[in-house]
């Protein structure tokens, strides 16, 4: 990892190359308020959680545009929970692009998938769960990747020599199980532990109105099982070896987007199938205004047994709406509601955002859980309803 970094820095800083250097970034202030007392004994009882996030993006391109080097350090400092503080390289890579191929070495973030309520097939990057419980914050993944572009689609191969552990809130933080997760004592199925070489292959193309992606992954599961430690004081993450086949399809017709993601996984104790699918329909310029309203409906199914890592998306219906004002400030509101058909657990998520002036961006979030009984998967989050305000300055 360090050697890679050095290579990239040298490439960026080498004055002989010429080319173009572009530096940008953002500084974000985040405040969260929880209106219930913490469910477990340790979490800090303060109602306010303050966080500062700094992201810097350094991009270099050589003169012909064939080579680029990208370096994106991400720093997060949390006033309440040390485990939520993080220093990460979201991206730190060098890439060479030919007419119909690209070779990339270093840490990168790669997204696969089409659905909105769950990103089932997206498996390359580890989730920064301490950063955000929505699973959309990711950690940079060290890799060697080769992409080939052909008339019949794009093929990408990934060799991943180093594993990133999932981040969890610490004992002082919210969104944690009854026992805190001990990130110092991590267990692996493979004797190579975090140095196990993971492999992945992806094919992606479109034919007319249909976009398709197929992928296979073999290596260390990004989802850990959490098992109680021998002393009974914490939970230990266990990362098993898995093989997974995934498919994502989107059919785009008029204002309708029909989406499906499915995986078949050879997991810890058995092979199972999981899928999420539904639609997004947008009404444009409602009531002769500039605003669009999108309606989303998705169903999540997961056939895993109790020996696999726990998922909350096992038989859930998601309904959502997206309001975009299409104004100068890009004002948008997203509201979603998830309902577990088997257990009656519900999750409400509201996100509103807009720009202020040219360089400031504000975001407001509300998240609330309810309906879980003891033993249900969201039981340990029941007291963690919160409101978050964040303000970012981009430069």
């Amino acid at each position, binding site marked *: 990892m360090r050697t890679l970094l050095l290579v990239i820095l040298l490439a960026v800083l080498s004055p002989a190359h010429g080319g173009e250097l572009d530096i940008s970034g953002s500084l974000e202030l985040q405040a969260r308020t929880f209106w219930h007392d913490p469910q477990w004994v340790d979490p800090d009882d303060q109602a306010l959680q303050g966080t500062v996030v700094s992201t810097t993006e350094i991009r270099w391109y050589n003169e012909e545009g064939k080579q680029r080097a990208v370096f994106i350090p991400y720093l997060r400092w949390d006033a309440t929970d040390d485990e939520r503080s993080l220093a990460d390289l979201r991206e730190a890579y060098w890439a060479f692009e030919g007419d119909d191929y690209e070779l990339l070495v270093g840490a990168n973030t790669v997204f696969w998938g089409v659905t909105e309520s769950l990103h089932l097939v997206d498996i390359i990057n580890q989730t920064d769960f301490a950063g955000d419980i929505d699973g959309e914050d990711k950690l940079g993944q060290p890799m060697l990747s080769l992409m080939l572009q052909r008339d019949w689609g794009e093929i990408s191969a990934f060799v991943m020599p180093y594993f990133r552990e999932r981040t969890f809130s610490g004992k002082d933080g919210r969104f944690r199980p009854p026992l805190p997760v001990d990130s110092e004592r991590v267990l692996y199925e493979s004797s190579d532990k975090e140095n196990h070489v993971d492999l992945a292959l992806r094919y992606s193309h479109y034919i007319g109105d249909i976009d398709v992606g197929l992928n296979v992954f073999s290596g260390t599961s990004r989802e850990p099982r959490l098992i109680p430690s021998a002393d009974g004081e914490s939970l230990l993450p266990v990362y098993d070896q898995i093989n997974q086949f995934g498919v994502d399809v989107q059919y785009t017709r008029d204002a309708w987007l029909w989406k499906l993601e499915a995986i078949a996984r050879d997991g810890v104790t058995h092979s199972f199938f999981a899928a999420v699918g539904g639609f997004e329909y*947008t009404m*444009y310029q409602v009531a002769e205004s500039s605003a669009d309203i999108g309606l989303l409906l998705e169903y999540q199914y997961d056939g895993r047994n109790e020996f696999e890592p726990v998922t909350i998306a096992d038989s859930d219906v998601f309904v959502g709406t997206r309001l975009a004002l299409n104004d100068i400030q*890009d004002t948008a509101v997203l509201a979603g509601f998830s309902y577990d058909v088997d257990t009656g657990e519900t999750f409400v998520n509201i996100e509103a955002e807009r720009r202020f002036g040219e360089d400031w961006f504000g975001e407001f979030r509300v998240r609330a859980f309810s309906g879980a009984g003891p033993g249900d998967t969201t039981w340990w989050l029941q007291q963690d309803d919160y409101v978050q305000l964040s303000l970012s300055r981009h430069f």
Partner: protein
Amino acid sequence: MNLKKETFALLAGVLLMSVAHAPKASDDTQGFDIAARSDRTDVGFGDSVVELQMVLRNAAGQESTRALRIVTLEKPDETVGDKSLVVFETPRDIEGTALLSHAKILDPDDQWLYLPALKRVKRISSSNKSGPFVGSEFAFEDFTAIELNKFDYTYVGEVPCGDLTCDVLERTPRYENSGYKKQVSWVDQTDFQIRKVEFYDRRGDLLKVLDMGDYRNYDGIWRAHTLSMSNVQTNKQTDLIYGDYTFNTGLAENDFVKGRLSRLR
């Protein structure tokens, strides 16, 4: 807001659109010929790259600026649309956001949006022809490449326009989901370039006026460098101020595939 009412408004719009989508008039070829002559002054540009500023102005005169880059690949065949890539540089919070379009003539375009925060490429619906493009007075249909065969043409007459004389054409969209009943365009008789366009909404009322100016000639290829769109109903305005074009930069089909979006930067 009343959702039922909004749904009804949408249905009424669909009905109007089916009226606007009338068969091509065959008795008037003069309008088409003038439009075709203008369109064909552009043939052979190959590909182009240009940086521009988009200045949005509301009725109170408040301004907001966006910087973007537009990369275009010519498809010389008039029955196939051009391919284009629009990449945003500012506002900073959307830096790197990119829209890839494979324009079609009458079928909906194929479009993908790249969202840099998630590094996600999302196929989007292109049926939103009449919606505002990034909060501007330009609709998606104004912004994507104007293809000759997307319209039916009627010759109206000739009028002086500045130092030049212009042919006036009425053009009606042949594609679905247009926000316009008709457009009236002014094409000069010297260089055969479009100088001005009036856009009439679905009711037939004047909605917007586009002035195209600062034409420069790049070895026979003309390009306007200031496009000013004024909405006469809301008094909002959007100006596009183009930098110098670069032509024949050696771009190929592979630079306009969806997978390329995540490798742009």
